[in-house]
């Protein structure tokens, strides 16, 4: 027996994404953002996307290309303060923005990847983030019902992958990638390194390949991945 090979080209993997898709994007700032997959989304002109991402990157980088190209309908995000384009698009009504507490977004995604329907939490009670949300009482406590999130597609950045889709990550480039890599119908991974089956020790695997659909090796690490001069 041998494990199946899921390597493909980025063009082919992204071509299967329909207009109107709900797309999760890994990344917190630069580390872990799948910049090359985002460029391919823009190049293929996928429209009316709902994007779920921790942050809106900065102007001229990553998710900003989707905003500038007018391809994003809605952004579910925890913070977009570093991208003036995103704030302008939100204020002018060109994109709808749903703000979520950071750990609650991560946990809703984790729950989606774990086949759960929702989480219960006291985070955000008595703030405006609780407005319009279902509240239940359990063991004498008021709790918010935060629905689990799954997406049509997750675009993931890994440091290393094997052809079956077993993944490892580096440093703070993990962030939302591991939970998102479990929470979509179609999981597409760009990887800096592709090693043969067995090239990642089973003990070192962080995302099991079972969750992954497509592996796209990066042919170059563009400037966008680099250290930002501040």
């Amino acid at each position, binding site marked *: 027996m041998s494990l199946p090979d899921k390597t493909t080209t980025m063009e082919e993997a992204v071509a299967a994404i329909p207009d109107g898709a709900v797309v999760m994007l890994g990344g*917190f*700032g*630069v*580390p*872990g953002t799948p910049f090359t997959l985002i460029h391919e989304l823009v190049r293929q002109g996928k429209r009316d996307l709902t994007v779920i991402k*921790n*942050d809106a990157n900065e102007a001229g980088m990553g998710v900003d290309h989707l905003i500038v190209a007018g391809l994003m309908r809605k952004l579910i*995000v*925890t*913070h*977009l*303060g*570093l991208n003036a384009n995103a*704030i302008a698009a*939100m204020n002018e009504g060109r994109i709808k923005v749903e*703000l*979520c*507490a*950071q*750990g*609650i*977004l*991560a*946990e809703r*995604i*984790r729950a989606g990847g774990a086949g759960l329907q929702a989480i219960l*939490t*006291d*985070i*955000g009670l*008595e*703030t*405006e*983030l609780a407005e319009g949300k279902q509240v239940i009482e359990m063991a004498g406590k008021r709790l918010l019902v935060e629905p689990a999130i799954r997406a049509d597609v997750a675009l993931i950045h890994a*440091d290393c992958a094997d052809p079956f889709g077993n993944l490892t990550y*580096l*440093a*703070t*480039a*993990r*962030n*939302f*990638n*591991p*939970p998102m890599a479990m929470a979509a119908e179609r999981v597409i991974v760009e990887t800096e390194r592709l090693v043969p089956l067995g090239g990642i020790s089973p003990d070192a695997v962080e995302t099991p390949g079972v969750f992954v659909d497509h592996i796209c090796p990066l042919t170059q690490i563009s400037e966008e*991945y*680099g*250290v*930002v*001069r*501040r």
Partner: protein
Amino acid sequence: MSDGNFSENVQDPRARMVARAAREIAPGMVVNLGIGLPTKVIDHLPEGFPVCLHTENGMAGIGPTLPYEAADRNLIDAGGAYVSPLPGTSYFDSAVSFALVRSGRLDLTMLGAFEVAESGDLANWKIPGKFSPGAGGAIELAQKARRVVVLTTHTDRKGNPKLLRQCTLPLTARGHVARIFTDMAVVDVTPRGFALVELASGTTAKEVQEATGATLHLPAGDIPTF
């Protein structure tokens, strides 16, 4: 980090506030420093001080900040600064990072503020109509760290007080702030309201009261300075 001792004799009022706040960190703590002023607390910790600094983008054990030339493109703190690991550092994803926060493993968080109320309410994420970038991880930090302290200038740029009877801006969390470090004073949140604990040297209790938008309870006897 400074050489073996907490910083002394800092002149600039803001730097003095940050240096004073650094002394709030006890050996052995797990601490999250918010974006902005709180991050600068690191510069005032003695070298080799036993503390685990957490950043919500997935790291426990933050080491010194690195210049551009030495930076690792995969290693930042939540404010985007390039940082380094220490022996014993760990990395983890965002779900684990906030599991740590919500389950009470943070001994202390230091946060910035737009407004703090005498009840310990904190507003630090939104100014309606002007500034609404999202709260990031601030709500969970403010609600779940075992101790929440705030670092802020005592007044805003126009001289308006930031310590108030009630917050006017949307809240980050209700009733969790325990202590406030400002350029003028150290103020505790008590069941009676704000209590003056320490004065910045050269500042009087009367000046602090005038710059505060709520009653400031004074201690009996001499007020220590920092």
